[in-house]
């Protein structure tokens, strides 16, 4: 059956440690997803057997910065570079850094602001 989705809320500082634990237990990194609300909401998804879990952390819109998990999961570089280019979140210790050239967009950091945020969002669509 479709597994239940467990979301663990964590502090940004605990990210590396929790990720390393998943890696040790043989989980696969499924994706990293970022959402712009009144904060940036980052979700790291992991899977093993028929389980599907997420780590959720929140970052401020201004000067968002978080540790890279490319040490644990090298494949995360694609997600992290993408989030850097689209959202403007900085990842410290990124092992394969495109320095903002992963996606060249005509608007810089297009996802950094959301027009749909109910509180304080500017709707010009």
């Amino acid at each position, binding site marked *: 059956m479709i597994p239940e989705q467990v979301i663990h809320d964590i502090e940004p500082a605990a990210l590396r440690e929790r990720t390393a634990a998943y890696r040790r237990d043989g989980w696969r990194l499924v994706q990293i997803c970022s959402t712009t609300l009144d904060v940036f909401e980052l979700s790291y998804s992991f899977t093993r057997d028929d389980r599907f879990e997420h780590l959720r952390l929140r970052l401020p819109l201004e000067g968002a910065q978080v540790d890279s998990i490319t040490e644990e999961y090298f494949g995360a570089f694609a997600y992290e570079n993408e989030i850097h280019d689209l959202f403007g979140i900085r990842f410290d210790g990124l092992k394969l850094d495109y320095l903002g050239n992963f996606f060249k967009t005509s608007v810089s950091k297009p996802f950094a602001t959301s027009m749909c945020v109910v509180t304080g969002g500017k709707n010009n*669509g």
Partner: protein
Amino acid sequence: MGERTVIPFGPQHPVLPEPIHIDLVVEDEHVVEAIPSFGFIHRGLEKLVEKKDFHEFTYVAERVCGICSYIHGMGYCQAVETVMNIQIPPRAKWLRTFWCELSRAHSHLLWAGLLADAFGFENLFMQCWRIRETVLDVIEETTGGRVIFGSAKIGGVRRDVDNDTLKRCAVKIASAAAEFEELKKVFRDDYSVKQRLCGIGMLSRDDAWTLGAVGPTLRGSGVRTDTRLEGYAAYNELKIEPIVETACDSYARCMVRMHEVTQSFDLIQEIAARTPEGPVFEKPSGYPNGEYFARLEQPRGEVIYYVKGNGTKNLSRFRVRTPTFANIPPLLHMLQGCELADVGLIVLTIDPCISCAER
């Protein structure tokens, strides 16, 4: 010889019709380093949720990619339906599964053709695409489209297919399946094909898992996994055994897809026979409020749709993590140290869909 040259692969390249650019640092014909760059096709369609309402967005979701288009539309619908707590009618579930499997069959045949073209076997390319046309006929007969179906809809499917049509389609698929078995033999046994595929692009089980490979790329490295086992749509009523190969090379990945086409053809027959009667659409009411990660199995592997609604007609976030995006790190790993002649081939063995990956 012996000196290093940089050979550009793409964005305009006959082997891969899609724009991906890889700088290949080559010594003689040995690839020392492969540096990809992306963004030639980045549209930013996820941002469109802010401009289109969530019903309308189904059509945008279908155009994430034109090859696995239907599954994108359906996955989006499935995610929204879960958020809105809608139970779709059983017949709609079965029809969705029917189209999913048709998508898989046509996508794999397309891929097989491109692979054959990449190793210079033009005749095989033509034969793969010839059989694929039969699958496209069935798709056209049941949805009206050839590559973009436009059949997904939140709350069910856009149009019903009567049972006679389903039966007629099953007959067509049976004839395509018979022709395909002949074709499969060539991929499985032909000396020159095996020369080009066996032992090329090795991806060990551990590397595949930790680099985050999905779909046939992961199954070709010996991991038993298939998101269809989770039983979305009508898959909980169908018996699915993931196809696993353990050789970890291009040949293994090729054989996984070959067997999956057979599996899909069988499933299509079964679905055509077992689809229950009933309505195909239930009108949803209200707006989505909440979030959900939907996981589906695309032809290229596991795909994730994330939907977050805030109770208005526009979603606050739609994100799709496509299988190709997840397969890029394993691809870089495989390209290291390969032969120049194998580059196109290895890139193709992950079945890249750059349009999916960059959205």
